[in-house]
């Protein structure tokens, strides 16, 4: 307890320094600004803004990236409520009831409740990170290669099981990601693999190249290929203040959403969309009159928004303490850290305490800034949602392309990104989810290295993965999860569940 407080004091001294405060503000502002644009999710926002943070020192750049992340996440919710065009799946849940509220002329209260729920969830989950982050880090110090391998397997299984859509295809996407991750020089033998004599491929395919191609480019093409008009309710944002009844109705849902979100966010492979969707379903179950959901129930905004933001924060626990990214966005953050010369893992907490605690403290600062920025500026954000897509998508392409080019000053990266875009579009049309691929891609090299190391140390016997208790638990959970999915009745339930989620 005392430890946490003194560490937090250190954190706040870092986060409240003028420089870091400014970068936090800049991150939250830019994140919201870009995230609010229709069709632009947090992943694309971060990928686009990543080059801007590279010039900073590691602490400032991490604080700014985190700010961009929750700024974009919040901006996406604004768009979901006003335009019903969520930038990513997690705000799709908010769109279900938020958009209905907007149609009933209650866009203001919906936005305010979303902001307040996010704020409460942000503060509470920050405390969770401050207490549990160090515990997880301590625990992970005992991990050997076998434990890391099994943990990554579990993360990948989670990501495939919880991805929207077909489990078999999601698992195949994981494998494709693992395969792409092998491109480059093999760490153990120093042998170049899948590089086809191209010098730029010796270091592997850059993470932003794959992420921007799979998500941004592929999504733009998808949006362009379908010409569907959406009604925008931005003009109706007048009465921002929620009524007392609104606040009372949303308090418990927001708190329950926070708990669910914090819990789910801490597990690798579970995305914020799963957290917000579960929170929504829980409220629907608990409600006296579930039929209101889908027709503008305020609980349907408060709970998923809280879960969303709480998960966004606790995602940093596995990412920073284990070096295992929970989601695609976290993989970007991890990639950025690695490029800064910091190897994330349990030792970060002790070797760079100012990094971890500065980040945790910046969550608090950032969440306050988010509230301060969002409530008064909601009119501005609302107007931004009206920017026509035909102006927006060339701008996204421009920033994504220059961003990719600038990381290595390499035209090859731009070609590869275009290629990833083509592949991503084809996959999307065939209903194959990109999220498991990207996670497989990031974890691929680590997974192989730990597998090889574990087997080398155990004379080639796979028993090491089941004889060590922690490793056994991770593999057991993965197995049970997969087995549960194969049981047909559960699978049917899941298909129904994901269809409900997609309906927003």
């Amino acid at each position: 307890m005392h430890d946490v407080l003194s560490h937090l004091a250190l954190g706040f001294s870092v986060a409240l320094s003028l420089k870091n405060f400014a970068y936090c503000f800049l991150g939250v502002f830019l994140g919201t600004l870009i995230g609010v644009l229709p069709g632009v999710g947090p992943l694309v926002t971060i990928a686009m803004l990543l080059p801007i943070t590279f010039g900073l020192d590691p602490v400032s750049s991490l604080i700014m990236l985190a700010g961009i992340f929750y700024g974009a996440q919040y901006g996406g919710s604004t768009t979901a409520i006003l335009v019903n065009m969520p930038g990513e799946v997690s705000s799709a849940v908010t769109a279900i009831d938020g958009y209905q509220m907007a149609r009933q002329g209650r866009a203001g209260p919906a936005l305010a409740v979303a902001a307040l729920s996010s704020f409460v969830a942000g503060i509470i989950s920050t405390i969770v990170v401050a207490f549990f982050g160090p515990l997880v880090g301590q625990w992970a110090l005992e991990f050997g290669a076998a434990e890391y391998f099994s943990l990554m397997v579990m993360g990948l299984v989670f990501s495939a099981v919880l991805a929207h859509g077909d489990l078999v295809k999601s698992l195949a996407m994981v494998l494709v990601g693992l395969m792409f991750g092998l491109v480059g020089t093999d760490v153990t033998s120093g042998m170049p693999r899948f590089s086809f004599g191209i010098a730029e491929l010796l270091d592997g395919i850059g993470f932003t190249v794959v992420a921007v191609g799979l998500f941004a480019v592929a999504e733009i093409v998808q949006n362009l290929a379908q010409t569907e008009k959406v009604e925008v309710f931005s003009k109706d944002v007048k009465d921002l203040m929620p009524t007392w009844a609104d606040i009372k109705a949303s308090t418990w849902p927001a708190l329950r959403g926070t708990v669910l979100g914090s819990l789910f966010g801490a597990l690798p492979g579970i995305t914020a969309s799963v957290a917000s969707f579960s929170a929504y379903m829980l409220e629907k179950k608990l409600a006296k009159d579930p039929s209101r959901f889908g027709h503008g129930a305020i609980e349907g905004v408060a709970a998923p928004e809280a879960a969303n933001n709480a998960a966004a924060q606790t995602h940093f626990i596995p990412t920073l303490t284990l070096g295992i990214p929970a989601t695609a966005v976290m993989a970007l953050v991890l990639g950025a850290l690695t490029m800064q010369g910091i190897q994330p893992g349990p030792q970060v907490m002790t070797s760079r305490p100012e990094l971890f605690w500065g980040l945790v403290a910046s969550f608090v600062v950032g969440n306050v800034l988010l509230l301060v920025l969002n409530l008064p500026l909601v009119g501005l954000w609302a107007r931004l949602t009206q920017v026509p897509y035909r102006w927006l998508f060339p701008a996204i392409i421009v920033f994504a392309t220059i961003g990719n080019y600038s990381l290595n000053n390499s035209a090859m990266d731009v070609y590869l990104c275009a290629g990833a875009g083509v592949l991503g579009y084809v996959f999307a049309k065939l209903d194959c989810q990109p999220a498991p691929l990207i996670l497989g891609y990031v974890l691929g090299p680590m997974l192989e290295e730990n597998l090889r190391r574990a087997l080398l140390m155990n004379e080639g016997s796979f028993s090491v993965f089941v004889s060590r208790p922690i490793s056994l638990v991770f593999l057991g959970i993965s197995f049970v999860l997969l087995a549960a999915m194969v049981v047909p009745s559960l699978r049917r339930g899941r298909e129904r569940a994901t269809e409900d989620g997609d309906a927003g």
Partner: protein
Amino acid sequence: MKPGLLGNRDVLAGLLFAAIGAAGFTVALAYPFGSVQQMGPGYFPRVLGVLLMGFGAVIFLRGLRRAEAVPGRWGWFALTVVTVSMVAFGWLMERVGLVPSLAVLVLVSAYAGPEFRWREALLLTVVLCLLAVAIFVWGLGLPYPLFAWEFGS
């Protein structure tokens, strides 16, 4: 109506996965396999390749049984135009400098949209070029020439 093989979503997905697996497996044949205890650089990719081919086969067969069509139309036009605009940018960037490359990128990619208007696209080009130069060259100090002419080598 049942889709043909080329319109069958899971048949296509299965083929794609199997093709990626087969390609990875074939390329990895050139790398030393090693043993379980001392895995060579060819071990992991070959296992992955086999697994992917297996998954591809399962998805392919299931596709035959379920016969679900690819939803919506394929946006080949938008896909081609966007891809061409990016490749052109990469190629031009090393030859004519940032501003002309950007202009091509914006104009060509904007053409991919369903409501392309010349005057709007030109205006957008000017605005985005200015913005990008301001942020990346003047702001972040990236060392790109604004204009250049380097063909030859």
